[in-house]
Every structure is written in C-alpha cells, then in structure tokens.
C-alpha cells in the first residue's frame, strides 16, 4: 500500500467516485464526479473499476507527491499537468516512481480534471461511497477538500496493473472550448411555462455565472416566462435538472444538489452533456437544444462506446502522435518523460481509420459510422 502526500490542495480538490447511491431518500445528496465520463475513463486507463475514487481537481490543480511507485492517469480538463516539472500526457496511463511530484501549470481547456491512481484513493466508504460532500462534511478525505499536509492512502491494486501506456486515442479525446450546446429532454414541469418561455429557453444564449459550484450551474441571460409562478410542491431532483426560479433564470442542478426542490424544472440536461457542462468555465456561452428521450439514450450508449476506445497502444489504429500533447512534444521527448517508451512499444503503423479530430460524444455521423464498423 502506498499513499499520496498533498503539498498544496489547489483551489478545490476533492475525492470523488461515481456518487452515493441509495441515500437520497434520507436527504443525502448523490455527490460524485461532476464529469462522470472523465472519471470512468481515468479509472479504466489505470485498470480500476469505473467507480473507484479519484481526485477531482478544479481549475488550479493541487501539488502532490507519490509515496511509492504508482500508475496514474489524468482525464477531463487540461490543467497543464507536470510530472517532476515536465509536461505529461493526458488520457493515458503513466508510471510514476516514488517521490514523483505532480504539479499543474495552469488551465488550458475545461474546468475539472480527474486523477486516477491504480488501486484508487482508499478513503473509508460512507453510506456506500467515497465521494466528498463538503457541505455536510461527509465522505471523502475527512469530509472536506484536501489541503497541504494531508496524506491520502492508495488502495491495493485489484490485479496486475497493465503498466503505463494504455490510452484513449487522440481523435477521441474531448476538446471542451467555451461554447457549449447542451442537449436537454423537456420536463418534468415544462407545462409550467408559456410557449414564449419555452421558446426563450431553447433559442437564446446563456452565460455561465461565477455563482456556479458543485451544487448547480447558474446562468445570466433572457428571462424564461412561467405561466403562473415558479413554486411547486417540492419533488425530486436529478443530475442536470434545469430549475427556473422566480427570477426566470435557469439553474442546472449538479452533483451536490439537494435531493428535493420546490421550483419548476423546465427540462433536464442529458447525462452526457451534464458531464460536458462540468467542464464549462464561468463566462462560457451555452445554448439548450431539445432532443427526444430515445435520442438521449442513444447518446448515452455512444458515450459508453467511446469509453471502450481505451486500449493498449498498438491495439488500434491511432496516430502515433496521439500519445503526447502537441504543445509539448519536445519536452516529452526529453529524458525523464514517464511512460513514453512503453507507450511506443509494440506500436503499429497508423491505419487508414478515421483521424478527424472529432469532439467526443458529438453523435456526428462520422462517429456513428466508426462504431458501426465494429
């Protein structure tokens, strides 16, 4: 068993898994990773079960030192990760020797990055989950964000680690950007809004507010008209519920949301796009796009197929350049780069497969065709 020493906690770094299941009826929020897809990907890269606990690192990452040799992977936002001061590939399993220091140079894309370590962060299970709910000081590392001086235990790896090199092909790596179109399923209370209100919601552009956190994402923009008030008899909430309060502005409820709420919910962001919203920064522009429930389920199926693209290097037809970051190729070639040699081992020549830089889970035709070939 090894551990991770926290040299600096960063802005907001918490232990999260896929969330707390079964206690919402007692008023305990689900919590868990804001970008559940990125957390799953990070775990698969290092050979963990999808639900293993990772670190969710927000905007400015932490500074960490590994107590012993580990295999790690970082997914989600690009926070400019440095291993012993050198840029390191994201969306790829990387070996780190004892005393390796992980720091972050600064955000380049997205909002939340995930660090998985083979064996998982081994904090105690609380109500069946290792996720942190800071508001009630529940779960995670002592119920709070991590800070300098903390030592987090790493679990014993469940099986032989595959070592470094396992990766998500570059063409499948998401690019988040600053303009997001979020697909929504209307309801459950869309009938509480005027036709004009529904049109406003679906046609206008909203700006993500700085008043956003793990509980919910707030927006500025045109007001959405209710038929007869914003209050309802309180009912259940889910990840992505788009609540419209009395001021007519939407709030998308996220991982740490209250289990119940008393405001009308015009729509629900699809779970795939809730992960995308988790990567939006304050000031980003958002539009809401209506889709049917069947389409939303197909979208979720494609997101899980996307996870299946994670593979050993050489097993697929990816571009060899995919294993490192274009901005730091020179640095990666320098000595001390972790995992490059093993990543190159057994690599095959690139095939004629699709190499377009598709943004993952867009559901574009090209992406669909690719899956149909399998």
């Amino acid at each position, binding site marked *: 068993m090894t551990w991770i020493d926290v040299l600096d906690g960063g802005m907001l770094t918490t232990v999260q898994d896929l969330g707390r*299941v*079964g*206690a*919402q*009826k*007692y*008023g*305990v*929020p689900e919590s868990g990773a804001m970008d559940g897809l990125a957390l799953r990907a990070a775990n698969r890269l290092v050979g963990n079960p999808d639900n293993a606990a990772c670190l969710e690192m927000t905007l400015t990452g932490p500074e960490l030192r590994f107590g012993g040799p580990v295999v790690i992977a970082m997914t989600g936002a690009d926070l400019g990760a440095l291993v012993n001061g050198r840029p390191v590939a994201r969306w790829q399993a990387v070996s780190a020797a004892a005393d390796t220091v992980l720091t972050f140079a600064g955000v380049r894309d997205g909002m939340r990055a995930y660090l998985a370590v083979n064996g998982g962060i081994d904090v105690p299970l*609380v*109500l069946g989950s290792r996720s942190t709910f800071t*508001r*009630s000081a*529940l779960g995670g590392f002592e119920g709070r964000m991590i800070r300098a001086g903390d030592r987090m235990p790493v679990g014993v790896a469940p099986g032989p680690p595959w070592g470094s090199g396992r990766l998500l092909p570059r063409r499948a790596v998401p690019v988040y950007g600053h303009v997001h179109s979020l697909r*929504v*399923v*209307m*309801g*459950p209370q869309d009938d509480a809004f005027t036709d004009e209100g529904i049109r406003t919601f679906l046609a206008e552009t909203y700006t993500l507010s700085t008043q956003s956190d793990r509980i919910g994402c707030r927006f500025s923009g045109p007001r959405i008209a209710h038929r007869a008030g914003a209050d*309802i*008899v*309180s*009912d*259940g*909430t*889910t*990840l*992505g*519920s788009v609540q419209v309060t009395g001021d007519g502005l939407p709030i998308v409820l996220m991982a740490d949301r*209250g*289990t*119940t709420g008393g405001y009308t*919910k015009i729509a*629900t*962001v*699809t*779970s795939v796009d809730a992960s995308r919203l988790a990567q939006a920064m304050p000031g980003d522009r958002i539009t809401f796009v209506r889709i049917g*429930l069947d389409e*939303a*389920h197909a*979208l*979720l*199926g494609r997101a*899980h197929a996307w996870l299946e693209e994670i593979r050993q290097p050489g097993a697929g037809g990816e571009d060899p350049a995919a294993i490192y970051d274009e901005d730091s190729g020179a640095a990666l070639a320098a000595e001390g780069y972790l995992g490059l040699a093993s990543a190159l081992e057994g690599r095959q020549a690139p095939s004629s497969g699709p190499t377009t830089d598709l943004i993952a889970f867009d559901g574009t035709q090209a992406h669909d065709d690719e899956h149909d070939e399998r």
Partner: protein
Amino acid sequence: MLTPPRVLPAGDRALVVEYGATIDAHVNARVRGLAATLDATALPGIIETVPTYRSLMVHYDPLRLAVSDLERILLAADAGLVDKAVPERRTVEMPVVYGGEFGPDLADVAAHHGLSEDDVVAIHAASDYLIFMMGFMPGFPYLGGLSPRIATPRLSTPRTVVPAGSVGIAGQQTGIYPTDSPGGWRLIGRTPVRLFDTERTPPVLFEAGDYLRFIPVSARESAGIARRVASGAFAPVIRVERTQPS
C-alpha cells in the same frame, strides 16, 4: 377508483411518477406504497427511488432497463397498490427542551399569536406529525400537521448557524435541523437526539411515512439523554400501531 399517475421523464436516467400537485396524506401514502413495492422487487436497472410529497422519483440505468419497460412496470406496480394492506403506523418520540437558550424564538412565536410560551409548547407537543418526505439536507424531515394557531413566518434575516437538533417553525411547517446549518426558521426548542449519523444503518431514526411526536423534557433530562446519545446507548421510543384501512 383512483386515477393513474402521470409518468414524466426527468432526463435520461430518471422518471417521475406524479400523483397530482397537492399535499395530502392519502396521496403521500400512495407514493410511499409504490416506493416500498419497487424497493422490495429490487429490479435490476432501478438504481434508487426517492419519495416526495406527491411523486416518486425513480432513478434507473437506461443501459440495463428500457424506459418503456420501466414505465409499464411502474404503472402495473401502482395498479397493484389498490386494496393492499395498510402498513403499521410508526410514531417516533423526540424529546425536546422548549424555550430559553434552546428555543430563542419561543417568546416571539407566543407574542405573535397572543399566547403564552406554555400554550405554544402545549400545542406543538399535542400532535403527531406525518413525515411526508426527507430532503433539503441529510436527515431533514418535512412534517405535516402544524396547528395554524402557532404557524409563524420565517425570520426576515436567517441565522448564519442554527445548531443541530433545533426545532423550528416556518410558516405552516415545523421541522428539526439534523446538522448545524444556516437557517431562517423560528427556533422554539432543541432535541439532544442525533438525527443523522453515518455510523448507523440506516443513518436516520425515521423515514418518510413515519410520524414524529415531540415530548417536552427539562434541560436536565435532555443532558441525560445527550450523554446516552454520546455513548451510543440511546434509542428513541417508537410506538407501533396497526392502522385501519381507510
């Protein structure tokens, strides 16, 4: 014959089974009946159910259970609720110290209604309160049945910290804060009982569908209970009655 509920999508991983839009004990019993049926079935693909006043939220995994199948299952389960035996009625007794430092707003509530503090306590402690649902924060019960004679508006400026166990009134509602939290309810008393504890299974002492009865105790009795709570030796009094089918 009861009208069938509406089944509404709440995104791609939850359905809401909605029984109208009112706060009503019979409607709420149907919600909880459906939750109990589904929980007992433990159908693969149903992740969890969350009962609220007048609807049940059913979280599911669409990759394991098709939504059309789930909808059929929910409506069939609802139809099967008719003529089901009415379950036992559980009433959990909550010892409360009223007034003084434990209930700093008791005097204001009394003054608001032209009552004495003792009157307010007597009225508050004279009813069994139905727990319609839990939510808002871990272990927080939404209670029905507050007498309009002591219903009082919230504070205009909420307190930054309300101590765990505080018993308050907000409009037509009364409730208990399970943990320290900011809050605007008028505080009339405090219970030494720990309402939410993750070391327990389940972490709560009562659930939606149970009743709460507030039992006035002295500060001295409360201190004794607090010691037993701290040592793990405390268990609340729970009265169980078999109810008549309505």
